[in-house]
């Protein structure tokens, strides 16, 4: 709306209202790759990630951000599907399928 320029404005809250998060994308991903549920956030995938240095790719964060209703597009943009994350995951999550499925159903949050 047209208003007075105060030189400052309301900033969007960074806190996430967990009960109001739109989990549609996560639920769809869950249906395609149920392994997403067993992530224990150890971060192995992130530190081993080949694409990490270029896009901040982190499967851990992708999984978490999806559950917090945040956009994950940028992180996924440099994924090379090299499979290292799948190799190191202690919970045996098929992270490559997870990423591919997500790319497939992806809609910007």
């Amino acid at each position, binding site marked *: 709306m047209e208003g007075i320029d105060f030189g400052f404005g309301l900033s969007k809250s960074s806190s996430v209202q967990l009960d109001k998060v739109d989990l549609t994308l996560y639920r769809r991903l869950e249906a395609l790759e149920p*392994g997403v549920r067993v992530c224990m956030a150890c971060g192995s995938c992130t530190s*081993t990630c*080949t*694409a990490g*240095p*270029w*896009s901040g790719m982190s499967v851990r964060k992708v999984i978490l951000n999806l559950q917090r209703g945040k956009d994950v*597009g940028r992180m*996924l*943009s*440099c*994924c*090379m*599907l*090299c*499979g*290292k994350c799948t*190799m*190191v995951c202690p919970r*045996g999550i*098929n992270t*490559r*399928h997870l990423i*591919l499925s*997500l*790319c*497939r*159903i*992806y*809609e910007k949050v």
Partner: protein
Amino acid sequence: MRERFATGFDPFVLPFLIGMVFVLGYCFFGIFRILYQLPKDDRRRFLVSLITPRTALKNVWDIFCNCLLHVKLWKRNKLLGFMHSSIAFGWFMIILLGHLEVFIYCPERVHLFYYPIFFNYFVAENESTIGGAVLFFLMDFFLLLILTGIGLAIVKRVRSRFFGMRRTTRPSLLDRVGLYSLWAIFPLRLLAESFTAHISGGSFLTIPANWVFRQFLGNDLNLLPTWWAYSIVLGVFMVVLPFTRYMHIPAEMMLIPMRNAGLRIRHPRKGFAKVQVLSCPGCGVCIDACPMSAQKVNIKDCTVYLNRQIRRGNEKRIEEISDKCLLCGKCEAVCQVGVEGPRMRVAQRSARRYGLTPDFAAIDTAPLSRAASAAFSGAAGATGAAGAAGAAAGAAGVAGAAGAAGASGASGVAGAAGGAGVAAGAAGVAGAAGAAGAAGAAGAAAAGVAGASKVAFFSGCMTRLTPSVGKAVCSLLDKAGADYVWLDREEGLCCGRPLLTAGRIDAAISLIRKNEEVILGSGADTLVLSCPICYKMFSERYALPGVRVVSYADYFDEFVQQGRLRFEKSDICYVYHDPCELGRGCGIYESPRRLLGQAAGIAEAEKNREESVCCGGSLGSLTLDFAHREVITRKSLENLYSSRADAIATACPLCLSTFRRYSDRPVRDLAEILDASCRL
């Protein structure tokens, strides 16, 4: 010889005629449709190949060998080979002889489709003539051949294990109609010809049969109904043929020329892919071959089912099957027809739409290549001229110098055009950017002076998780005195193969472009790879002018031949596992064995080389989960254990870490074994 009917016609030929016209019409329509579906350049290429004498001859030869004689099947399984070739070749010969008869005896009837088929009904011939006796004998002989084949086929249907097949496909309803009508054709022909033999003549099969029948059957009454029956089953067979697995008979004749023309699958369903699908005979050889068939739940995910589901248009199953596959290539290796199971699957994957596509444009490769080019011992000279654009700029450069380096062996060589040649260490180094020139590298390779080149070692993503492999390769390069740099030691890009096999082809290509920048920018003229996944990708998909792409197995093999590496044979006996990508993927079977044989004892597993069993770790599969992979790995290990070797050797970091997870005996990479027994 006399014709029995002046009209040359009887209504019983109608079922056959209808079937014949239908199937021919269907096939012609199909051929035009497929030609239309081919991309323009592919179509042109295909048509040109048909009239090029060399390929045309090859086509005829291949069709004869594969479609009629089933040579490939003979090699694999004699009984199955005999069964198939007896039916196919026998039938072909009967048709050929039929035409021959018509040509010889009533050339004016040659335009009638049915005449050669029902010759014995229309033409009364006496076997007493030499021609008749020979022809009739041959006819009966081939009929007998076919009947033996049919007999075997019936046994196979009931007990496939007699044929060494553990599993086979269940035919669909139409397949059954086709199958039973096929089975019925030849006994009915025998019956019809036997009943007619006292009129139209016959040979060792038909005449005795005729005599037997005449003892208790009013022979002439049975004459026409048997010919009707024969015609009807022929008609039925031909009408259902396009909708059954027997479509592979005409389709394969299309597939062979297309393959010989060098076509590739460009569309998941149309054109070449369509021919592949139709060419699948549904024999199910791929079921037993598929490593996934270690588990019952995955049996229906091998290539034969992919083809079946594509024919049925069951999209859900097509997706499941194409995503699950390990892309190990074994089904293709064993397939009698040569259906490209892995490529078909990648094509299905590539048709998928994604809401998000990777974008590698923002990746800055300069630091990666700069770090590498600075690390070469000839860096001082090289950086000036090489830099990022150096590879191209210097391409024309020092071909001669590199060639000279070849001639003077491993001694120090001064580069000419690049400005500075630096002799470093024991091995001579042709400095200067020009060494990266295409001719230079080719010259170097031809002269066998790998030591004079700048070697980039690309370990790939997987090797980072099996550090022992990278360490061993570097140690061997050191021992051989190579001037090398570990290109992706700190950070590196993926080769793009995982993206490619996931069907994300555009993304893979953009990643390839990035990697090309790194490699060309590094100033290397030889790229050594420790990972067969990368090697396949680099050798097939990369445009690296002036850079020789080589797997470490081949590279070290050359070193051994040049005497730059020597090994002391240990008493450990290894069984060598052929990694899918290195063996079936790149055809490298011998150099790893040669190397291993020098460093240790070597044993062979029950299934090896082309038939090696995938370790189960493959990146090819998108959906196979960890538990299912474990079963595959254990099955693959069983095959290796069959050799009774002390330990397992392989040449792929992914196989290595997959096997190590479950193996009860040591698993080592070839490089590790070589390094351990290397004698300086």
